């Protein structure tokens, strides 16, 4: 009985797959599309491999860029022979920034659809709610936009992005070395798992360096950013670390512009401000005055993977899909998964084997990341802890310091662990 059902559904998916392949190959000829995976140019028509993704799309911010890039890459792989003949069926769910919805859609993917892995997850709420589900169901997640503490402190989730802590610290580290920073005001949201946590870690790291950090935290709905600015000024800091989402960050800098404070302080920020539209929104006033850390390498690099990322996006993504850091991170996540699956026998691809294989990934190198990536068997994951420092110009971003590693404090332990377990191939 089950067999009969199975045949029917695979016939349906076969014909759907053939239709998609026809469409994809049409597109491929038109744009001389890049080769992915096996590079056969032949559409895969085997039994699909189910991969899921949970992203926060509808809500205060859109974290779906990673899944968009992963989707584009999977399309490209499917059009080029798939995973040794098996196409990837990629299902993206929107958690709508609601913990309840996040729990529901993750259950759907993990329990109902029985996906073998999740890729490109990006959310403010999803990981907190679902970390336990992923662990209980033994499914691995290669995320690409982790923003909260729970995402990094989960056994079955590892992300290709850094999150606010390393990004804050890297930009502060650069400011200490190059701008003479002595005291930092860490301006962030008063959400415990995000702003409170990241400022706390940053301030601890600063204390380790014999310097001082002061948190300045406020409610995300606050209308009045000038009061936040005045509070930051009152801390007596010489450097303002603006650890806010792009929209709030722009509003904060506008308040600082109103008060004419540009030249009295050093202005630094983590990755969220490395986003298209930010230089235009900030305007000429801030030209060359704000230093931003990027968690991955800049968008316009010419490395082979960077080029491939742009080509895949142009050929297979929707025109409105963003080409930003999170898109790069999603592309890297999808590549890690595809490379892992390619190593496996097609008939052995099930959840347990995929989880095992993903957790065994180490020393994964790509020019989109500053340092090698690994998953590993650990209760927390922070494989990405090197970045690029950029300065904002009225016309865009300029690199001021290429890939550099975070040093000191918590990173000593991480580096020691990497060394002892050979995670980065450097032991």
């Amino acid at each position, binding site marked *: 009985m089950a067999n009969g059902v199975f045949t029917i559904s695979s016939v349906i998916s076969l014909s759907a797959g053939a239709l998609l392949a026809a469409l994809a190959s049409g597109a491929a000829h038109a744009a001389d599309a890049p080769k992915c995976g096996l590079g056969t140019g032949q559409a895969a028509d085997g039994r699909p491999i189910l991969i899921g993704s949970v992203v926060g799309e509808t809500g205060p911010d859109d974290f779906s860029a990673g899944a968009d890039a992963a989707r584009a890459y999977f399309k490209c792989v499917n059009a080029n022979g798939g995973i040794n003949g098996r196409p990837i069926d990629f299902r993206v769910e929107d958690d709508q920034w609601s913990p309840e919805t996040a729990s529901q859609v993750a259950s759907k993917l993990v329990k109902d659809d029985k996906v073998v892995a999740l890729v490109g997850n990006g959310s403010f709420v999803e990981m907190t709610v679902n970390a336990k589900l992923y662990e209980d169901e033994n499914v691995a997640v290669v995320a690409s936009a982790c923003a909260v503490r729970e995402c990094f402190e989960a056994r079955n989730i590892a992300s290709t992005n850094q999150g606010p802590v390393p990004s804050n610290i890297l930009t502060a580290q650069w400011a200490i070395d190059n701008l003479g920073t002595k005291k930092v005001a860490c301006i962030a949201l008063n959400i415990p798992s995000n702003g409170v946590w990241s400022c706390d870690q940053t301030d601890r790291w600063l204390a380790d360096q014999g310097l001082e950090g002061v948190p300045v935290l*406020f409610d995300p709905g606050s*209308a*009045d950013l000038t*009061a936040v600015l*005045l*509070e930051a000024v009152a801390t007596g800091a010489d450097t303002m670390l603006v650890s806010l989402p792009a929209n709030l960050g722009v509003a904060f800098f506008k308040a600082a512009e109103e008060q004419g404070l540009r030249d009295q302080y050093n202005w630094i920020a983590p990755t969220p401000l490395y986003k298209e539209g930010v230089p235009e929104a900030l305007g000429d006033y801030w030209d060359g005055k704000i230093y931003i850390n990027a968690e991955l390498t800049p968008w316009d690099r010419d490395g082979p993977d960077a080029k491939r990322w742009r080509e895949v996006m142009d050929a297979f993504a929707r025109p409105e899909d963003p080409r930003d850091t999170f898109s790069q991170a999603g592309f890297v996540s999808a590549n890690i998964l595809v490379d892992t699956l390619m190593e496996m026998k097609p008939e052995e691809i099930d959840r347990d084997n995929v989880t095992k294989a993903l957790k065994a990934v180490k020393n994964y190198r790509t020019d989109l990341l500053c340092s090698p990536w690994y998953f590993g068997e650990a209760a927390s994951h922070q494989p990405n802890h090197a970045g690029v420092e950029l300065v904002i110009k009225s016309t865009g971003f300029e690199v001021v310091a290429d890939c550099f590693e975070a040093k000191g404090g918590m990173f000593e332990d991480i580096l020691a662990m990497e060394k002892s377990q050979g995670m980065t191939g450097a032991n």
Partner: protein
Amino acid sequence: MGAYGLFLVNGLAVGAIYALSGVGLVILCRATGVLNLAYGAIGAAGAMIAWQLMQYGCPEAIGWLAAIGTATLLSLAYGRLIAPHLSFREPVVRAVATLGFAIMILSLMNFSWVEAPRRLTLATDAIGLSILGMRVTGTRLIALLAAVLVTLAVALFLAATQTGLRMRALANDRDLAAVLGVPVVSVETVAWGISGVIAGFSGMMFADLVRLNPTVLTFLVIPAVAAAIVGRLESLMLTLAGGLTIGVVESMATLIRPVAPFRAAAPFVVAALLMLWYQRHRRLTFAGRD
């Protein structure tokens, strides 16, 4: 003193925003009995369209016209097409229904403009003067001035014109006013129109002074309701005072460490406390009168 002065001036500037919205809410509520929870969304829609036009290179004046025009149209559309269907329901139901309208406008905005860093810059941002150590831009001065002027103008309008008289009559007793021959529909239309104009104006002010984000601007209506409550949903002067007080309390709370993280709750705490104080002499409530 220096820090106190700084936060006082800042609080007045923020309070002007609350006051301006509160006045727009109160005038509509008085004339039509509708507390418009879509007020923020209507203003935000105006501001987004103005921003889009200015991105296309239109001069600021066109942006202002578009913002006020859009807001007025939306306000009138609701007032003429939807509100009459609910006119015989109780005030709370009529208020709650506007949330449906707010959600519609908000989702249309989010659909049309994907989340991105945006900034609305007005010519008045460039000028400014220093008060008690804080630099106050022209836009903030305009917001404060507008809050006062609009309050005075509307108060004068209600006191001195025939339409104003009719609005007051409607506010006192709807049924009686209708029996006495007050043209309910046209008077209400005027009220929706005026409220829309104020919503468009304050939407531009908010987008400049707070931030250009549809969701934030839409839900800014809740602290504005707090200012309207201070004015008991009828007194324009008290609403103005309430808005400014709330702004100052919220800003000054930054200086008191233990309460600083909660200072965004200032509008609600101030409004609730004042409301209780107003009611201190009342003993009984009777059905039928709200």
